[in-house]
């Protein structure tokens, strides 16, 4: 295939595969406002079909095993223009290995170098916010004590999601720069947006408030192309209730400034450089 490749990047349980399945659902049954449609049915769709069936039933999409990573190749149409899209669905553990062990396989490295863009997924449940020193002072938590503090050993997995996100984005940036590859478009996808919709913040503001480090990093890279999206690929909490929703309009996206629509593929389209 010679079309764009968009990498789905994120630690485990951040919604990458669910998003991909939602896109698969959308391109098979495009509705008005959907930017992508299927040009022809792929020859190896078993992987997607199996998970699609779960998605339709409102079940959680299966965990993507490390050995089960798939390079999804789709023949699509964008504004009636056919093009091929490659989306490697890598396991979250692959990216966890990047941030925890600082290593990546050569196959993943090659994919990240080839990618035109990347969707970097973060999940609101993984924020794991820390107290700032000022906040700790205010609480009196930094008062001196005779007892020697015993810090637990650092578990890099348990760092806040924004730390992982910055780490991943910066690693991709440095790697591509080392190989003289053009900067990739980075779409930050805040998954399960339905769970934070009540905060009444658009995705950019939400990231600024909830993930200030990521926000600061993105601002520092103002010359690069990045956008923040909120996405609910499942359409709500997994269960029978979400299965009863119309699949065409079940998944939805929130643009950076707050516009909401059902074109779940929009971040993908942007990251692929089609728009």
């Amino acid at each position, binding site marked *: 295939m010679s079309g764009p490749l968009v990498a789905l990047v994120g630690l*485990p349980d951040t919604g990458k595969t669910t998003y991909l399945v939602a896109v698969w659902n959308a391109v098979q049954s495009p509705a008005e406002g959907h930017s992508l449609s299927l040009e022809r049915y792929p020859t190896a769709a078993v992987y997607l079909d199996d998970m699609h069936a779960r998605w339709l039933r409102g079940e959680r999409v299966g965990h993507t095993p490390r050995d*089960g990573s798939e390079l999804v190749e789709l023949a699509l149409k964008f504004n009636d223009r056919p093009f091929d899209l490659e989306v490697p669905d890598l396991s979250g553990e692959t990216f966890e290995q990047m941030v925890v062990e600082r290593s990546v396989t050569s196959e993943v490295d090659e994919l990240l170098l080839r990618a035109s863009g990347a969707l970097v997924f973060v999940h609101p449940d993984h924020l794991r916010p820390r107290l700032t020193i000022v906040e700790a002072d205010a609480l009196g938590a930094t008062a001196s004590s005779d007892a020697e503090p015993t810090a637990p050993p650092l578990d890099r997995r348990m760092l806040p999601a924004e730390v992982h996100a910055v780490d991943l984005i910066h690693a991709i940036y440095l790697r591509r720069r080392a190989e003289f590859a053009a900067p990739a478009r980075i779409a930050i996808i805040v998954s399960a947006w339905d769970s934070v919709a009540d905060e009444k913040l658009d995705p950019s503001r939400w990231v600024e408030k909830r993930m200030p480090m990521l926000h600061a990093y993105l601002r520092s890279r103002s010359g690069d192309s990045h956008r923040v999206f909120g996405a609910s690929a499942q359409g709500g909490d997994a269960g029978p209730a979400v299965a009863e929703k119309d699949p065409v309009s079940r998944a939805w996206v929130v643009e950076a400034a707050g516009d909401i629509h059902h074109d779940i593929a929009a971040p993908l389209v942007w990251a692929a450089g089609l728009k």
Partner: protein
Amino acid sequence: METHPTPRIEQALHGYDHGHRLLAASATLSAEALRLMDRLSDAAGTTGHPDEDGYLTGYPLPDGRYALARTWPAWEIPRPNCVWTHTLVLTKEHLVDDADVGRWPALLRRPDGDLKVYEAPVADARGRTKGRVPTAAQVDEPTRTAICTSLYGSDDGLAWAESGDPSLRDELALAVWAQLWPALRRRFAFCSGALEPRQAGARAFDLCLVPPASARAFRAAAPSVPGAQVGENVTRWLAYDLAQPSPPFRQFLAFVAGGSTRRTTIASLANVWVSLTDATEPQEALAAAVREITKIGPRPDQARRLKRALFRLPESPMLRLASPVDVFTILTTGPLAASVTPSDATLGSWAGLAWAAAPDRVLSFVATQTPNETRQLVEQVVEEQASPPDLPRLASSAPALLWRVLARNTSDDAWWTAFAALDAEAIAEAARVAPQGEAATLSRAAAALVGDGSDIADRWRLLAAAVGAEAVMKPTVAALTKRRPISEQWRDALGAVDPNGEHVLRHAESSVELAVAAEVVEPTPVVLGRGLTPWDGLSERDVASLRRGLAVLFLASVASPQTSDPAFTGRVYGELYRRLAVDEAADEWAVLRARLKGSPDDWDRCKRLARTLAKALRSSGSRRVDLVVAHAAREDGAAAARLVECLEEPPPKRKLRIFGIEIG
């Protein structure tokens, strides 16, 4: 009951906790090993679901250990496709025994809530489980055959088979794993419930057993492995062995394959095995062995383990399949002589067996082979294993070897009895190559031949002629001291070899040996010219025991009257006179008859004796004469008186002869 401690087995548990990860482990794993384990402990694909009982995965770890794991679906985790995987980290020691292959899977446990049990090594693993060699008896023959064909027809690449029964998939996977020898077993990657083709690092898995729902992924992604054709009889045997493990075959594989990590090795070795075991005639078995060795290891440094497995005694299958003589022949002069080293073939042992069965064949090899390491080895075996009855064949085929055998057994009388029994031809043949420097052996040989047989002295003469009188005389004289009176054949024999008694006299040390010497030497001028001096060591008793020897002493005394001890002279004369006076003394007279002075018609032998001595003493001084007379008188008074009488007789006139006419 285990008599040796089991190296403890480390273990690890993987499961889903915001991602599939290591949840508990009893030992620290290297980063590389952990990465591999993290990946291969995760679900074996995304399409399909593991069965309730899970599936087995085995693969080598980068640090040289081996991971054996069972993976179960984690139904209790809300996210689909999550799994639990319990992994045993096995060391080399855990994978040596075929029975352990069946033992370890029983230790794999699905977590039941308490993860702490996975933080300690498995203790007393062998005590807790029953070892058994896994078999694939329940798996149908076509499946077993297909797996063997694809797996053993190439060194790399995936071999896979489809089965709907998870227990059969486990059974087949473990049976194949157990069929391998330890080195290959430690490198072998397999999965009994693969949903998609799997990789262990850069290598594809060797074996995947696949539920039917996942077979399509394998057909699409992993076409059948192209490889060398494995013979039908070989795959049939290997497939049979999966169902009915053959311990001898497995031992053969383990030994011969050794450190090989190539899958095709098993096909090659199974081919050898089948060739040998299918052979119905000994020659067929040998021909098969020759064919395989020539093909696989024509040089001595190639395929040495195979050669040892085929020929090394006592385990060699050739012992059952062929005669030791034929095996010996093939290894020494046949097609394998240049391909198999003597040590690899335990040629010495085969030579020993061949010697016991057909010694002439072994000696034929020794006789015709140019000296080399092999011949030396065989000769050494013959030296060690020959027995006295073998002497005749040694003499005719390998006389030099005969001497080496005798040299090892100089103190064993049975050998010398057998040597003495050799016929003249054999003695001659042996004598021809007798080792000149081996004094002890030659001495023993000479002594052995001193006997009473009809031609024994002739055989002694053959030996003496070949090795020289000096080498044989002392033991011969010593042996003859026990065989008195000395027979004429021995006198003749020694006389022929030592006409002037030089060697006899040099080696006669004791009185009795001097007596023997006196009995055997001929009264030649050289002997007599020495006078009585060489006989000074003779005791009176031994002098009295002499027969013809006494006559020789008398003649020696009269031949050199000035140098011979007068007392000795008198004693010899007196003793001899007395014998001639009282009996026939035939032996003595035979020596004296032609040499005594006096008329040949004169029947008074005593007189002739006395006259001879008197004539010899005429030029001696009176003191010497007096001594002779005095000692003669001690022996016999009449002898002394007769001597005095002869001394007082006027010397006979010389008669003049002119033209044959005596005048005067």
